[in-house]
């Protein structure tokens, strides 16, 4: 049995120590994106939608990866894009392989406080991964919410992740799902253009809506502006930020974003709290 001696050495929990999990399933989402199910020795895991883990590919390194699965399943699921040595090594793991897990870290989507309201999920590219647990949570209690819309933008049709699931959601009468791509070949019959363009196509009550957005920073900035233009309140718009992270709990300094540590105070922030920072270059 894989064991870790995280333990309470000297009565203090050491958050630098990963537990050794095992990959139990691997699914290819697109040419460079893989979803891994991970079993940990501690058994079922509890996390809030929007939180992330620090995942270790032993001998290669560690990376902050959002949790992309169903929080009710008790299982850890991560969706990783191969962009550097660590994420590539994580993507190459196979069922049975060991994987280091630290976490969960950070503040997630305030989905619980959005009951009775209209929900708007706006995702760009891999940004759909950290939003998916919140979508699952909302769908698990569908009747508690008003209208729900999922707007998704991808680079091209073949880079769309969770495709089957999106198609399934699109077939539901109680969901409004729209997808767009930046560029496509002749066989694409859907929208082409940026995800912000889709906002005008959804109906929601701006007074009674909560929006959750994740994607490239520039996309989130424009999404937030478009939602404010539709008269949504800045405090009802939530964005998940990305920064370099090494520790996960505000002590390595890497993820600083103005006064915030993205790992600890975020990654999910109300637009209201970070709007001035988003307007600054290289902050």
């Amino acid at each position, binding site marked *: 049995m894989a064991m870790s001696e995280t333990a309470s050495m000297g009565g203090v929990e*050491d958050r630098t120590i990963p537990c050794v999990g095992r990959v139990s399933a691997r699914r290819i989402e697109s040419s460079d994106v893989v979803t891994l199910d991970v079993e940990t020795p501690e058994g079922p895991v509890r996390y809030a939608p929007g939180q992330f883990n620090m995942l270790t590919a032993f001998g290669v390194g560690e990376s902050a990866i959002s949790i992309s699965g169903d929080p009710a399943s008790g299982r850890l699921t991560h969706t990783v894009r191969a962009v550097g040595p660590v994420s590539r090594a994580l993507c190459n793991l196979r069922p049975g392989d060991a994987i280091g897990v630290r976490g969960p870290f950070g503040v997630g989507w305030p989905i619980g406080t959005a009951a009775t309201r209209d929900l708007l999920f706006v995702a760009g590219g891999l940004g759909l991964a950290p939003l998916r647990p919140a979508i699952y949570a909302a769908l698990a209690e569908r009747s508690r919410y008003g209208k729900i819309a999922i707007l998704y933008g991808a680079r091209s049709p073949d880079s769309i992740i969770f495709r089957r699931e999106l198609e399934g959601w699109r077939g539901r009468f109680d969901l409004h799902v729209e997808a767009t791509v930046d560029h496509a070949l002749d066989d694409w019959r859907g929208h082409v253009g940026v995800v912000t363009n889709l906002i005008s196509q959804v109906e929601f009550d701006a007074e009674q809506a909560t929006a959750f957005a994740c994607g490239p920073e520039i996309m989130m900035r424009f999404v937030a502006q478009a939602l404010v233009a539709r008269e949504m309140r800045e405090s009802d718009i939530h964005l998940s930020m990305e920064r370099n992270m090494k520790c996960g709990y505000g002590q390595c300094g890497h993820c600083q974003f103005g006064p915030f540590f993205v790992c600890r105070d975020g990654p999910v922030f109300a637009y209201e709290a970070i709007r001035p920072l988003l307007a600054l270059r290289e902050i």
Partner: protein
Amino acid sequence: MNDGVILSCADLNALIESLRAEGRRTIGPVARDGVIVYDDLESIDDLPAGMSDEAAPGHYRLARRDDDALFGYAVGPHSWKRFLHAPVQRLWRSEGERAAARVLAEPLSQEKTAFIAVRGCELAAIAVQDRVLGEGETVDRHYRARRDNAFLVAVDCGTANGGCFCVSMGTGPEASGAYDIALTEILEGEHRFLARAGSEAGQALLRNLPQRAATAEDIRAAREVVARTAQHMGRAMPVGNVRELLARNPDHPRWDDVAARCLSCANCTMVCPTCFCTSVDEASALDGSGTARVRRWDSCFTMDFSYVHGGGVRSSVSARYRQWMTHKLSSWFDQFGTSGCVGCGRCIVWCPVGIDITEEVRAIQASERETEARHGNA
């Protein structure tokens, strides 16, 4: 713990001997390679007798004093950070099947230490790092263990060097805070030290040393030492709300001005006694039998520091300098309820091009005042 006692040079040596007899590694100022560093001390003979440090922006030289002062310098490039928040710290290693079956936490340091000649600014810096690493929601075990194992012998500053601005930061030149024993070196008349205990451990140790009671004259002379040092401090952080000043000036043209001078060499962050940023590296055994994760000091001045897929967030030197200084003097308050600067002046002295943090604050402050004045006249 109040008025204190008087130790002679020989009695001071007995203090070091007692600490060593307790099994402590005694670390203190040693003149080496043309600077005063913190390294192992066996007796007072290892202290930099008759030495002082002459410092200015981008300049540091050891100089001879015309007396035998043992603590007649201010601060060198080392700070106590290197003994509490280790520059390189293994966190864990893994072993077993494919080097990934078991993760073994790195054992905590058991080494008992005594730091000799901790300055007022350094006590303040230790208090700052306590808040960042040693307290609160997440405690760094390695820092905590080293911190708990350290006995602090503080020394009031009898001299300020050209980098010092502790008076304006409220951290010196008198040692205050969490010391075990504090000393004032008195050179006037007989060479002696006024010693006072700051903890029970300090009191117990002091009680067993050869000593004599302090007279009113000793206490007056000790106060004089600190007062003189404060008077001779040539540098100051500008008065005013620096925290707010920097928070509202992220777009100030001065950031480009300083960036034209800054080499982004990271010296300021390495010598800073409060900078705490770290990175981690993976170290693998060549035979594949195991891996380890090693934490090392990092700096917000490197390009890698803010790297995310697609590039560094702060690619310009201007953005990196702004990050460092705004964090140190402004957002540190938001994060830890205190300034990140203690006024030791190391970043000024060890900057190869002599960038002065107090001058940069002054420039931003002055331009704001000019703008206000202009608008007032208009």
